[in-house]
Every structure is written in structure tokens, then in C-alpha cells.
């Protein structure tokens, strides 16, 4: 994924990257002095997610870190979307030292701007605990690492085992699109929503677009499209929306009224059959009750084009960055090193967190069946993509693609015009 993107970077961004690299070197020199001592002073951690499940594991891990090292951590939890929207201002102001963030473009942009601390030294120390592909996803355009992976999760079809049993359906055995449509039809006949979707936030439906594009046109086309090497006006993209449109009759009638929380609630309250979503929401099921959590399952989106099978999956990597403007960058590095390490991830898993660890040395014996299934779904795929809004330019994903998909859901017959608009807006973007 990342190497594909790197092919497309312009000379300007390479030069800019070199300049940032120079700064990083200069800063690195002065920071070496601090490396000897273990005492890194009090530090701050900016966490994302105000859901009970998220706050709970953050607090548990913070306590574990304080016990293990004797350092003091101030934990500041933030609303996930609001944090995302204001990250630029956050990083230029007085950010927390370490903060929860995402790999890929979303990290690279801020790294290019010099707002993230180079964490190559942390990679030198615990880098062997991660797969090479994770290192690539953590690397900025200047070749240095700015990100530490902690967890990853699959985007797949989530459903309740009990609902499907009642319906007499077995999503694990959907071989192809026809089977999938039959499943949606059968769910609808029983008065349930076949395919729950919310797109109020503008990004939720990108998950469905990603997987349809990967299934129909393959990984390479998807990646090239998002990198601007293929055109949105290509008949292949129109084909994706043709499949998307076939699913609309089986969706809830208020797709644009609800966000991902609304989708989660539809599944929680057994109002729908299946939905395409990232497994991160499973923590909310567990918070509600262990029985609800045990009932939750995930399978990969079915094959459409036999040429590509089920070879691709959106499996975004979450993790941590260190803010360059934080009060205590050394403390931030020490914090993220511990949090991303096997030990830190074990503390997180022990707190009952339902994510799967990105650490390849993690002891998975404590995983519950749902966590093991997440891993199986991700490991089945040959190609891993991050997610549309992490795999393409930030000034394109949310401002352009999000309203385009919303407009499509509102008026599917306008798709040709909508896609022409998307391409025109891509063409009008300033060079990076």
C-alpha cells in the first residue's frame, strides 16, 4: 500500500521531506542527552473515544504503565470525531505528549508538516516486535518512523449468530454475490433490515465502497484509483455503484440519518441481519453484556469477481504518535514505546479490550473466539488496505468522496454525474 503511494509523490514533497528530515536530525542530536536516564518526568496521553469501553481500557493501561515504570501519566480522553477534526490545531497548540492516531496518509500529512516527533529510536528498540509492513505504514515520506502500531481490526460483515440461526441462514457459507443477495432477501422477508448502513458521518459507507471496489476490480485498481492513477469516470467505478445500488432496497430507510452508533444500535437491538463495519465497535457489545458479545460474529465480505476472490480487506492500523510540540517529547516516546510493546498490549488485552494486537509477539492464548475470528478474517486476505479516508489525500476523502457517496445514496440514478464531479474535483486539487 505505502509503496504504491510513494511512487506518486512529487519532487516537491520529496524535497520538503528532506527538509523535515534535516530538522529531525538536528533535533535528534540534542535529544540524545536525555536517553540515558530512565526518569522522563510526568507525561500526557491524549486518548480517542468517549465510549465506556474505550475509556475503560485507556484507564487500565495507564494504571498498568504507572505501576510498571513509576512514571506519572495524565490521561485526556477526547471525542473521536472532534479530535480528528481539530488535530491540526491540537498539534500546533499545546498537545499531549503521546496521542492515539492512525497509520498511513493521516499520519504522513502531519509528519510532513513537522508536527510529529520522529520515533525511529523507539523502532530501533522494539521494532522487531512488528511485521515489516507495519514499519512501512509507520514511515513518513522522509523515511523516518512517526507512528507506533498498537492494534488493528477488520472491516467485514458483522452479524448476530442468534439472529442468523433464527433466520436459518449461515453467512459463513456465502460463496458469492447471488448467495449474498439471497441472504439479504431472506432477512428482509422476516421484517428485518438486510444490510444496515449509516452514513451521516460521511465516512461509514466508504467501507462498503472500498470492499465492493476491491472485490469487483481488485486491489490494484482500488489502490490506483485512490492514488489518482485511475479515473473515477472509469466504467469500472460505475460498476461498483451498480452493485452498491442493488443493496439499497435491503438497507434501512434512514441511512443518512444515522452514524456508526446508529448502525451499532440496530445490530444490538436485533433489528438487522448484517452490516459492514470495523470490529472496533465490539467493545460496546461487551460493555453491554457478555452474552451480546458472545453472539457477535464477523465474516469477510463475499466474493464477487472470481478473479480476485476475497483477497483484499480494509484492516486499519491504530496506534500512537508523539507530538513535536508536546511539553515532554522524551516522556511521550517512553510512553508510546511501552504502550505499543508486548507488555503494554498485554495490559490492554487483560483489561478486556476486544481489539487484536498489532504486536507480532503477542501471546494470543487469551484471545476470545471473536478476537480469533477477527485475526482469521484479516489473515485470510492477501492485501491489506487501511480505509478510504486513510488511503488517499485528506483534502479529497472527506470533502469530496464523502458527499459523493451521500449524494449517491440519496439519488442513485445520478451516479454518472456524481462520479464526473468527483473526478473534476480530484483534477482541481493543488499539487502536493
Amino acid at each position: 500500500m505505502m509503496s504504491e503511494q510513494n511512487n506518486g509523490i512529487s519532487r516537491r514533497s520529496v524535497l520538503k521531506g528532506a527538509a523535515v528530515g534535516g530538522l529531525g536530525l538536528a533535533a535528534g542530536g540534542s535529544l540524545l542527552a536525555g536517553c540515558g536516564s530512565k526518569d522522563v518526568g510526568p507525561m500526557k496521553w491524549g486518548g480517542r473515544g468517549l465510549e465506556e469501553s474505550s475509556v475503560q481500557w485507556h484507564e487500565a493501561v495507564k494504571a498498568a504503565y504507572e505501576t510498571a515504570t513509576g512514571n506519572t501519566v495524565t490521561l485526556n480522553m477526547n471525542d473521536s470525531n472532534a479530535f480528528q477534526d481539530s488535530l491540526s490545531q491540537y498539534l500546533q497548540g499545546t498537545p499531549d505528549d503521546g496521542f492515539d492516531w492512525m497509520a498511513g496518509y493521516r499520519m504522513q500529512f502531519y509528519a510532513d508538516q513537522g508536527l510529529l516527533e520522529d520515533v525511529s529510536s523507539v523502532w530501533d528498540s522494539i521494532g522487531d516486535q512488528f511485521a515489516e509492513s507495519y514499519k512501512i505504514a509507520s514511515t513518513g515520506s522522509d523515511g523516518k518512523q512517526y507512528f507506533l502500531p498498537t492494534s488493528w481490526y477488520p472491516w467485514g460483515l458483522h452479524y448476530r449468530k442468534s439472529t442468523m440461526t433464527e433466520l436459518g441462514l449461515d453467512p459463513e457459507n456465502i460463496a458469492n454475490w447471488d448467495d449474498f443477495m439471497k441472504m439479504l432477501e431472506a432477512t428482509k422477508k422476516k421484517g428485518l433490515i438486510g444490510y444496515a448502513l449509516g452514513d451521516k458521518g460521511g465516512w461509514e459507507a466508504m467501507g462498503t465502497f472500498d470492499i465492493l471496489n476491491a472485490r469487483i476490480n481488485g486491489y490494484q485498481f482500488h489502490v490506483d484509483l485512490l492514488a489518482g492513477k485511475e479515473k473515477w469516470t472509469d466504467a469500472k467505478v460505475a460498476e461498483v455503484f451498480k452493485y452498491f445500488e442493488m443493496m439499497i432496497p435491503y438497507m434501512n430507510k434512514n441511512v443518512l440519518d444515522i452514524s456508526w452508533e446508529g448502525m451499532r444500535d440496530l445490530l444490538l437491538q436485533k433489528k438487522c441481519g448484517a452490516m459492514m463495519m470495523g470490529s472496533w465497535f465490539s467493545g460496546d457489545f461487551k460493555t453491554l453484556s457478555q452474552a451480546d458479545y458472545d453472539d457477535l460474529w464477523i465474516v469477510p465480505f463475499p466474493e464477487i469477481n472470481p478473479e480476485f476472490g476475497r483477497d483484499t480487506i480494509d484492516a486499519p492500523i491504530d496506534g500512537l504518535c508523539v507530538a513535536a510540540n508536546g511539553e515532554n517529547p522524551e516522556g511521550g516516546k517512553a510512553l508510546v514505546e511501552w504502550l505499543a510493546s508486548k507488555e503494554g498490549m498485554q495490559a490492554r488485552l487483560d483489561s478486556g479490550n476486544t481489539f487484536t494486537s498489532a504486536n507480532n509477539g503477542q501471546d494470543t492464548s487469551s484471545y476470545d473466539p471473536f478476537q480469533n475470528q477477527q485475526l482469521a478474517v484479516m489473515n485470510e486476505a492477501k492485501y491489506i488496505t487501511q480505509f478510504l479516508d486513510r488511503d488517499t489525500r485528506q483534502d479529497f476523502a472527506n470533502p469530496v468522496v464523502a458527499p459523493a457517496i451521500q449524494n449517491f445514496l440519496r439519488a442513485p440514478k445520478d451516479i454518472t454525474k456524481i462520479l464526473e464531479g468527483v473526478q473534476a474535483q480530484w483534477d482541481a486539487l493543488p499539487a502536493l
Partner: protein
Amino acid sequence: MTSTATDSTVRRRRAFSPKDRLTLTAFVGIPTAFHILLVWVPAIGTIGLSFTFWSGIHISDIKWAGLQNYNNILTGTPVFWDAIWHNVIWLLWFGLIATPLGILLAYQIDRQIRGHRFYESAFFVPVVLSLAVTGIIWNFMLQPGGFVQGILGRDIGNPISIYGNYDINTYVILGIASWRHIGYIMLLYLSGLKSVDASLKEASAIDGATEWQTFRKVILPTMKPVNIIIIVITVIDSLRAFDIVYMIYGSSTGWPILGILVFQNISGGGMSMKGAAYAVILFALCIGPMISYLKQSFAEDVK
């Protein structure tokens, strides 16, 4: 009017003592300095930024872009025209429906119709709430699983689409905004009406004027300063609308409006110059009608 003019000429001729001068300088100079620093400098900076390409982080990365951002917005961003359309509808709705309703309400309450105290406080309550809170309240009322859906007998698996339905969400949002705006206008107008000399009304009643004639020919002209304020507030509130929509839809594009586009571009990654260009367009839309209207009304005053 003429007397005021002579007054000021006389005042200007008066010699100021050094202490007076110092006080005047301090009273005028300090606020002016702050105003220039906090309003004009950022405003001009924003206008300048709208002609550049800039990620919003390092000054050294600024590149001249000429009119490209505006060109991009006007020709390459369909969502801009949706936003303009929504702002125009908002303005028309406020100007033609909500504001007149507020005035009517104020007039009726001022006449002390039965239960006027109840109406006054009922319409006043939403004014106390900030627009953001208003948005949150109505979000709870209308969302799937919320109060209104419950009354309609819809659970979350079988809801009616309100915010996502383009046929009705505009009216729902304008209704929510009016909920507060009507009370606000009522309050402003009521305070104006209280200061209208009751003998004016009596005189026109004696002359045999109807209720409507009294309102149009006597009350409305007497209320001119308040009218100007209300028109200015209506126009500005309609164009800068943001809070309610943001609270209902989040930062995204569920119901685009200029204020949201400014925010979305500046807050997201790397598009602050486009956000600045939206802000300049918004500013131009606000300032144009405002200046022309104020000019006109001052000109009439001088006559």
C-alpha cells in the same frame, strides 16, 4: 437631525485640556488597537490566505495561487452551490416568515392579549439557550429512537428519515432555527415597543386608523432604529448559520451550509486556504447587503 449636526460642530471646536486628550486617546485608542489587532489583522490575513495554497502550518510553505481557490470553489465544488442554496433559503425563511412572526408576536404581547405573560415566557425560553444546545435538544427529539419517532410509533428498526431526507430536512432545520429566532426577534421588538409613546397609538385610534394602519404608519416608522437592528440580525444570522447544523450533522456534509464549509476545510488537513476563500465569500455576502442597507437608511436620516 440638524440640531445634532450643529451640536457636534460646537463640540469639536471646544478646546480639550491635556488630561481630556489623554483620557480620550486612552478610551478610543486602546479599543481601536485591540480591534485592529484582533479583527482587522486576522480578517485581512484570511483574505490574503484565500489567494494562496497553504496547508495552514508552516508560513514558509505558502505559495501564491491567484484566483485558483475561488475558481475551484465556483466551478469544481458542487457542494458549494448546495451550501449557497441552503443559506439563501435560510435567509428567505428568516426574512419572510420567522422575523415577521416575531414582530407580530411582540405586537400582540405588547397589546396585552390574554395570556400574554405565558406566551412571552414560552417564546423567551429558547432564546436563553445557545444554538448549540438547541441543536442537541432537537437532535434528541428527532433522532431514531427519539421522542418524536416514538410518538409516531417508529422504533429504531423502522424509523422515518428526517435529517437524511432532502425533502424535509431543510424545513426541519429552519423550524428548529426559528424556534429560537422568533423569540429573539420578539424580545428585541418588545423592548422597542415599550418605548413607543402610548399617546401616538391613542391619537391614531382617535383619527379612526385601523389596527393595521396604526401598525404600518405609526408604530413601524417610530421603531426605525429597532427595525434596522432586526434586519441586520436576520441577515447576519442567516448567513453565518453554523451551530445547529453542526450539532445535528457533525462536521460533515449532511446539510451543507457556508459556515460548515469554512469550518470543514480549515479544520481538516491541509485545506485552510479553501476554507479562507469560503470565509471571504461569506464575508462578501454579509457585508454587501449590510453596507448598502445601512448607507441607505443613514442617507434617509440626514434628509
